[in-house]
């Protein structure tokens, strides 16, 4: 039975990991009880609207605004259960620029009043950055390792 399922998977679910795709992003969230970490990898185009090095005043302003937006609106994009009273803080923001592409790596630390296990997390990436089309979210906490492809605002992940 598993062989049939796996062969179907091999045909249909093979995906390209780690590739740079505009509109796509990857978010990894790890939690140990009440403390957690969010790691985001996003093509710069999705956040800034361009990928070349920001040299002009206008581009620099756009970049700064986008990064500020990312920092301030992270809790609007990744929404933990309000009962958990989670606080998300910026840790490291890094823009890696290559010749034709740029990626943003953003890490956040999370601290909640209660453990996240058994709760639901919802995602609203497109609401804040309209260029987001799909985001691969991986979530790991004690006893739960889950993945979700967020295609629209409100897609959620149950942590059980």
């Amino acid at each position: 039975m598993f062989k049939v399922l796996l062969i179907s998977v091999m045909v249909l679910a093979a995906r390209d990991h780690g590739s740079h795709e505009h509109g796509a992003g990857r978010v990894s969230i790890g939690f140990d009880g009440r403390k957690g970490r969010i790691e985001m990898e996003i093509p710069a185009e999705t956040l800034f609207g361009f990928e070349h090095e920001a040299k002009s005043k206008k581009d620099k302003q756009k970049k700064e605004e986008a990064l500020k937006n990312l920092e301030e609106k992270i809790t609007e994009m990744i929404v933990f259960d309000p009962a958990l009273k989670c606080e998300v803080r910026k840790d490291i923001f890094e823009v890696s620029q290559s010749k034709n592409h740029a990626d943003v790596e953003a890490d956040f630390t999370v601290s909640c009043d209660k453990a996240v296990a058994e709760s639901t997390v919802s995602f609203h990436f497109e609401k804040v950055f309209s260029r987001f089309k799909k985001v691969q979210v991986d979530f790991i906490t004690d006893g739960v390792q889950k993945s979700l492809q967020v295609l629209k605002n409100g897609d959620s992940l149950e942590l059980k």
Partner: protein
Amino acid sequence: MVFLKLAIKSLKNRVFTTGLTVLSIALSVTLLLSVERAKRAAEEGFTQTISKTDLIVGARSGPLQLILYTVFNMGNATHNVSYESYEDIKKNPAIEWTIPYSLGDGHRGFRVVGTNEDFFKYYHYRGSQKIALAEGDVFKGLWDVVVGADVARKLNYKLGERIIVTHGVTKGEGVQNHDDKPFVVSGIMKPTGTPLDRGVYMSLQGMEALHIDWQSGAAPTPENAVPREQLNKDTLKVHTITAFFVGSKTRIDTLRLQREINNYKEEPLLAIIPGVTLSELWNGLSYVEGVLRMISWMVVVVGFMAMLIALTTTLNERRREMAILRSVGATSSQLVGLLVFESALLTLLGVISGAVLSLVLVAALKPWLETEFGLYLTGSGFTAREWVYMLVTLVGGTLIGLVPAMRAQRLALKDGLSVRL
């Protein structure tokens, strides 16, 4: 109350057709609930084949390939991981435990895995289930092997049995056997309902000993062959492994560790979070789930149609009953109510019988499904989704009753009282 009495008496009067209608709805509901339960069991079996392991590390390829050859005994690795890299990564302070995994050989169609005793200590599946031995002991000596439950059952192996390992993984009997170096079954594992049951497990040194005189990749000539007696577990050096499992100290460490291993400079490696990859794979199978659910709903619709046909055809036989009810003062809307009530009653009986039948089937087939298909039917009650299915069936069945009821309403009073010539 009058409705109930009348409906029960009327249904009793047509006990055979009533029984068939209830049976058809019951079978539809049983199928719908069983498909839902089987889907849950398959998902559970699939995603919980391995648990409590934070990372699986192998040579850089695809996550799918890595999980298939390590967890599901399918396919082969394109490259190995050097033992030095494994030892180096193992020293990372974020790592709590590791299990080395060396693949490549087979035994009569089953995979042979070289590992160490940590495999029995740390490998978990289905939550916190651990590997346990039904008989014997783990491999202590160089020539000891532990066989999975399926291997022991299918090949009728007992403790002390001598087995020959085949070079490479074959579907049946091997072509090139390591017949100069037989192993002895030292332990038999308890069934796990996972691909672990279809493996033969030996020490990493045992795997190394098999290939010590195969350095050129071909079988050794008589003069190059190293006799079994000359080999010693303590002096054999392990050169490569295929992959390794990692348990990290904290889940936050896991993310960092994954990034570090994926950027490991000495060797191109790939670290995946198994549950995440399995969950991604399962999401890729959602179309199968959709098709199964659609088939079940179609069966429910066929059940409704059977009820509609039964109610409509019996309506003709009940013209006189309807006319008598009208003549004693029942209004046409009361007749509609009676017929809709009847269909609701039939559907309710069908849904209850179907639900009970599905529970009986689960209880009866559970052991067989576990051993034959690795399907673990978890949870004794119904899920919220299953309750919704039953409610939707009940409402649908009740609404179906409106069709014959509207027809009956249109029948004239004299239609039932007058004799047709």
